């Protein structure tokens, strides 16, 4: 089981500062949600950790070992990326066999079992698969490799609802049977919310948040009711945003709802992970 320490990581692509001084620790045996808007720097961060691209400055340590170009450290990681790094002419089964060469604990039986469940044709070439099935092939490969830390970059891209549900279920089953660190980057936050134990939010290349999802849920709440009552309540509190509909208003407020004295006339709701994410990244 492995811990990843990211220290002062920065990366720019020309004039675009993709990552700026990111410091983060990914603990062992935890499912992380790596969240951020498009272009926030999530894929860049994952690619750097997995040695697919190189940072301009900063350091990454895996179990205390610098990871840059270090097979001992990198061998503990696997990344399911958006881009396909295998030869497109390779068959799915050949991709599994290739990965099995690199990961000593690769579970080929499990990979074939999942392929059957997803109805993935393992004799098909990768380039002939649809976007969805290519993602499935990569997901199965990632789940079967049994690496200490597995990164999923947009794993459900192109998947239908059934397949997405299958993925979440299988990820949890895998995690329960063989604990590891999963880092899942996704835009479908609400779907993945049940899976994620800890959320890391990146905004404009900087680390905005690194918290347990339970703690995040208590970071804000919404109050709804008559506009005047809501305004009255919201005075002196940190309002993230407001929605108005006729005489009714909803205010999204930062803070712990349990420590507040909220009038009975107002309806109070906890903020979902997605809502909090939207408000945090909008502000």
């Amino acid at each position, binding site marked *: 089981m492995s811990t990843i320490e990211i220290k002062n990581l920065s990366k720019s692509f020309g004039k675009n500062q993709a990552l700026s001084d990111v410091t983060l620790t990914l603990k062992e045996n935890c499912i992380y949600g790596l969240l951020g808007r498009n272009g926030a720097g999530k894929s860049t961060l994952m690619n750097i950790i997995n040695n*697919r691209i190189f940072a301009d400055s900063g350091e990454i340590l895996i179990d205390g070992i610098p990871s840059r170009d270090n*097979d001992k450290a990198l061998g503990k990681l696997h990344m399911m*990326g958006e881009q396909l790094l295998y030869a497109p002419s390779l068959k799915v089964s050949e991709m599994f066999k*290739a990965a099995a060469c690199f990961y000593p604990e690769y579970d080929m039986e499990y990979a074939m079992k999942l392929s059957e469940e997803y109805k993935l044709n393992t004799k098909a070439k990768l380039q002939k698969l649809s976007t969805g099935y290519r993602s499935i092939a990569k997901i199965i490969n990632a789940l079967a490799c049994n690496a200490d830390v597995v990164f999923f970059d947009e794993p459900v891209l192109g998947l239908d609802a059934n397949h997405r549900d299958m993925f979440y279920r299988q990820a949890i089953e895998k995690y329960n049977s063989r604990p590891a660190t999963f880092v899942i980057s996704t835009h479908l936050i609400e779907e993945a919310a049940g899976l994620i134990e800890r959320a890391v939010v990146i905004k404009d290349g900087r680390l905005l948040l690194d918290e347990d999802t339970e703690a995040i849920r208590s970071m804000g709440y919404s109050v709804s009711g008559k506009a005047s009552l809501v305004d009255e309540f919201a005075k002196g509190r940190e309002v993230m945003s407001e929605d108005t509909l006729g005489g009714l208003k909803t205010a999204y407020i930062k803070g712990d709802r349990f420590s507040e004295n909220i009038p009975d006339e107002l309806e109070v709701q906890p903020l979902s992970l997605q809502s909090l994410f939207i408000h945090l990244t909008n502000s």
Partner: protein
Amino acid sequence: MTKHSFTASYKYQVRRIIFMLILTLCAALVAEIILVAIANYGIDGRLTLEGIGFPCLDALSGLMLFIYGAYFLAEFMNAGAANGVSRTTSLVSAIASNFTVSAALALFVSVVSPLINSLSDSGSDIFLLEFIYGEKKFFEFYGENAFVVRIRFFIMCTLSVFLCAMVGILFAAAFYKLSRVGTVIFTLIIVFVPAFGYPMASISLAKRGIDLDSCMKKFFTEVERAFGMAHVNGSQAGDFVRGGFMMLLTAVVMGFIAWLIVRRANAKPAAIRGD
């Protein structure tokens, strides 16, 4: 680099190259057999294999390994990046796998070429290397053991084919690292400098009293001497030790340059149509 990561990379790469190579070689052999039979039938109405020969199969092998060395490097780099292997390991194992395949190919050439040539009286059993380092029959004529002569040619064939693979790897390393614009510029330089740049430089320098052609001739003669080639050696016998050493040294230098290029190269996945 760990033993496991190197071994895993190496096994993956050897499997990939050898399969393609066997396919290509078998196709070449079958095509040769069919074409010779058809040609003989066209000439005198008999479907025979007279005239079949595979001279300079070592040159063809070198060309194939140049192509495959270049073709597979990006895939090997990317497969390594996909599976937790560093660029250094991917490159070193690519060099090792290319060397292994070169040796296998040299063995194939040493055994198969004479076999094919023996199918016909007029077939000639001569490698390109023999033009450069002396014919096998020359050394046997002067009393060298036939087995030793063949082992030596096998080694030289391996090294020369490996050197061709390294040239391919070096080119591929440059293309892997360069951006799209850089790749275009690099390609244009390779294509146009020999075709236009050299003649233009030659004419321009001639006006200044500098004979570029004779300078280049002297340069190439020195290179041939450095590689122990026969026709600058004053004999049909080339200097194998020097030639082998220079081939290895050149391969090592190329490998080092390729490593300097790719060690910080971002993984560049192959494009898939429709994505």
